């Protein structure tokens, strides 16, 4: 009896299953990140720039996150890039991060524009979300709101005494302090400083099985001039605990990004 049972079960075990699912027509998209100052590619570690406030400055490091990239169609539909990755890290010192080959298959068709979040939304910006370098190095202290920096732009400027001073032009979760006493115990609220960016002139088409490469340009000089003139001599070198300064950075961010080559 047991032998018969085993043989029946054994034979039953040799079935093979199959699954045929139709695959929609899609292409792919890739983003190339370029960084310009006054329309010229960034040169690091040299005092060759002057901002709108007249500060002579240099950029040494630039790291930032963009997230929740959306591709907009004229009919109002939106293709959100989030199949495998919804937060992208860019670091001018790590060439591999200057190109994002998006994993998501993108339905073929014409898209009107691209938008994204600069930084990380409140819902997603959680401590210990990243545990590996380089992203982990963007950690924002828990006592200051936690999560991760949206941007770290580190460099130097020549102060009013003609002495080079370091600046950490950092953007992340801001804090409100009781009686403007900048101490951890005085914090009574946090401010989300991420913002939305809509890339101008970013219409494109996706063709079947082809990859569309879109250049996203960060115009670094724009962080310092519109709509507010940002003066390092006024705000100083560290702004992580200076919400008014970060508010200006946030508001200046609206036109920092432009669209480059689409190919």
């Amino acid at each position, binding site marked *: 009896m047991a*032998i018969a049972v085993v043989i029946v079960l054994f034979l039953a075990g*040799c079935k093979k299953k199959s699954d045929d699912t139709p695959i929609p027509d899609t292409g792919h998209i890739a983003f190339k990140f370029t960084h310009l100052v006054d329309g010229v590619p960034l040169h690091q570690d040299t005092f060759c720039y002057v901002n709108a406030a007249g500060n002579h400055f240099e950029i040494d490091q630039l790291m930032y996150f963009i997230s929740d990239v959306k591709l907009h169609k004229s009919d109002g539909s939106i293709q959100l890039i*989030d*199949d*495998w990755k919804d937060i992208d890290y860019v670091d001018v010192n790590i060439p*591999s991060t200057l190109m994002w080959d998006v*994993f998501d298959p993108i339905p073929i068709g014409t898209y009107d524009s691209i938008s994204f979040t600069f930084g990380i939304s409140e819902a997603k910006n959680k401590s210990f979300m990243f545990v590996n370098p380089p992203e*982990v*190095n963007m950690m924002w202290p828990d006592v200051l709101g936690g999560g991760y920096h949206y941007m770290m732009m580190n460099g130097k400027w020549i102060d009013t005494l003609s002495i080079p001073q370091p600046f950490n032009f950092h953007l992340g979760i801001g804090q409100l302090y009781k009686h403007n006493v900048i101490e951890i115990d005085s914090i009574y609220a946090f401010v989300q400083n991420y913002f939305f960016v809509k890339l101008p002139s970013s219409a494109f088409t996706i063709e079947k099985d082809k990859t569309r490469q879109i250049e996203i340009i960060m115009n670094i000089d724009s962080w310092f001039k519109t709509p507010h003139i940002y003066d390092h001599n006024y705000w100083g070198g560290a702004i992580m605990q200076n919400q008014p300064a970060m508010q200006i950075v946030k508001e200046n961010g609206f036109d920092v990004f432009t669209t480059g080559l689409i190919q």
Partner: protein
Amino acid sequence: MRYLHLLTVLFTVPFFSVTSAQGIKDTTIHLSPVEIHDSIVKDKPFLIKTIRNEEIQKGAVRDIGDYLRSIPNVSGVRKGGAGIDPVVRGFKFSQLSVNVGGGLKVENGCPNRMDPVTSHVEAEDIESIEVLKGPFALKYGPSFGGIINLRTENPHPFEKFEVHANAMYGFETNWNGQKEHLSVLGRNYGNYTSGKIEGKDTTFNTSFRKHNYTAKIGFSPTKNQSIIVSYDEIHGRDVLYPALPMDEKSDDTRMMSVDYHLRHMPGKLKTLDIKIYQSDVNHNMDNSLRATWATKQMVSIVNAVNTGGRAEFGMQFSKFLITTGLDVENIYKDGTRTMTMQMMGTTSTKRSNLWKAANIQNAGFFGECKTTFSSIELLGAIRVDFNNADSKDTLKVISGGISYFDKTNSKFTNFSASAGITKKFSKKMKLSLALGRGTRSPNMLERFIKLMAVGYDNYDYLGNPQLKPETNYEADLTLTYSGSKTGSAYINGFYSNVHDYIYSTMLPSTLIKPQTAGVLGVKQFVNVDYVTFMGFEFGYTSPADLKFGGSTIGSFTYGRIPEVTKYLITGTQVTGETIIKDDALSEIPPFESTLNVFYKMVKGKLVPQLSIRAVADQHHVSQAFYEQDTPGFGLINFTVKYTVNKNMKVTAGINNILDKAYYEHLNRKIIGSTGNLYEPGRSFFVNLFLNI
């Protein structure tokens, strides 16, 4: 309790153990342990390998998992100096059932399997090891790919009061390892050095310290009944695992059991065996001995308790020998991970669950029937398991209407069966065929683990509470020849088709992000359609009474998955995927063969033995797992055993005489690199055994 007699008491006192006895009417004669060379095929239609402690004592056994690798088609996953995890015919982890002392089960504490069950038992406590291949033996619990029975020494009855002691001292160069065994065992091994790699000695961080205590008390209420109460503790400290992200800071394991045996019953019921047990593992691991500790501290603490029992009835109805019974086990597991990161002068700490009061209950009923018709032996077995799992997890991973980790309760009824036939063509030759279906439910790790790098590949893993059981359909064919003058030989082939094979698939980082530094992302356990294993093994052993003799073994396993997703990696990120057809399964050992030659001198008291092991290249590797080819190697080992008298014995030898730099295919890579974890280079060892 008129017939209650004290059989044996082992006191766990330093450097001495005492055995005492009071009068028992029956005389029991204790024979010296007998060496059994490759007694592969017994009266079962599938392969069973039994090794007695005499055989184990020949070598420098630091770890049972290490020793098991000398058995055909048994290999092991090495991640450090100890805790080698056995692999039988490509089946591993919970696909193998490992029983201690006739049915005690241990749930390992470490999610990375630093502490497989074999690491919770000391070789010096072993009376014999039994390896049963395939899903055919169903009375030891759910059986899937094989069973490893670690039979520990039990108290023996004595006619009158007697005092006995046994002792062992061993030392091994290279590791500077030493072990002492009386009733207290202590082991202290340093880092080992491989053979010269590119002309240089390379030392690996593989040191470990272990000690254990064992106590057993036996009673004999009547002459055909016995009760044995056992208590065992084993403690590990600073056990280093260079292939894992953390080291074992401490591991404290307790095993307790009560056994009742009834023999020589008149009537249909011949024997009765009952066992109840509990094992309790407290495992603590961290990265305090790593460079990363300065900026990121990881500490994991896990408690795993397995409580259960079994009852087995042996009956005879005419020509039919029937074994039936039931077994139950309840596994409880709870563990936390604490991560502390230092950043910009501040400290952030996160505490999360690895398991949260997770439970698995399994109750099984089994029956086995054996009979003989003329030259044909038949064996049939069936087993039904009722499996229930639950957890107090609060994690929910739900996206797009799909639940990845939410509902934690699952219930399964698993049916397993096997049948075998042995045809004796003559007194010397027989042919056996075994067919079996073995089903196992997913284990604690596969169901409930949360974000630990526990696999072969570089990903954090997430459990899947809704996994289905996997089922192994296997066929074994074995031809055996045994002659008193010619020796014994066998050849075996097997084919296995595993349905609902538990594999893994990557989850998008938008869904869940890893928690382990250096990993590429998160994978979740899933069932895939099927995979296949096939292979063969052979062996020959010369007659035991020859002065000059030897043995040879060889084995090969091939595993494939018909279709699998390979994740494309650019830098440290997954950037795409592609489908691979007919890929190899990962961690399948290559073909290997071993030749042993011995010569008995001084009336058999002095026996030198030379062993040559040849292992082939492994090129059949998993593309999906980015598994690397491994080169073949050859090893020469030498041992000598000298029996001074009935109370004293010395074994000594040289392992890896040529100081070959080599690594097994299943050895994991050094964490955070593609560097290989080599095996130890040349080492000398000596063991002294006293038995009074």
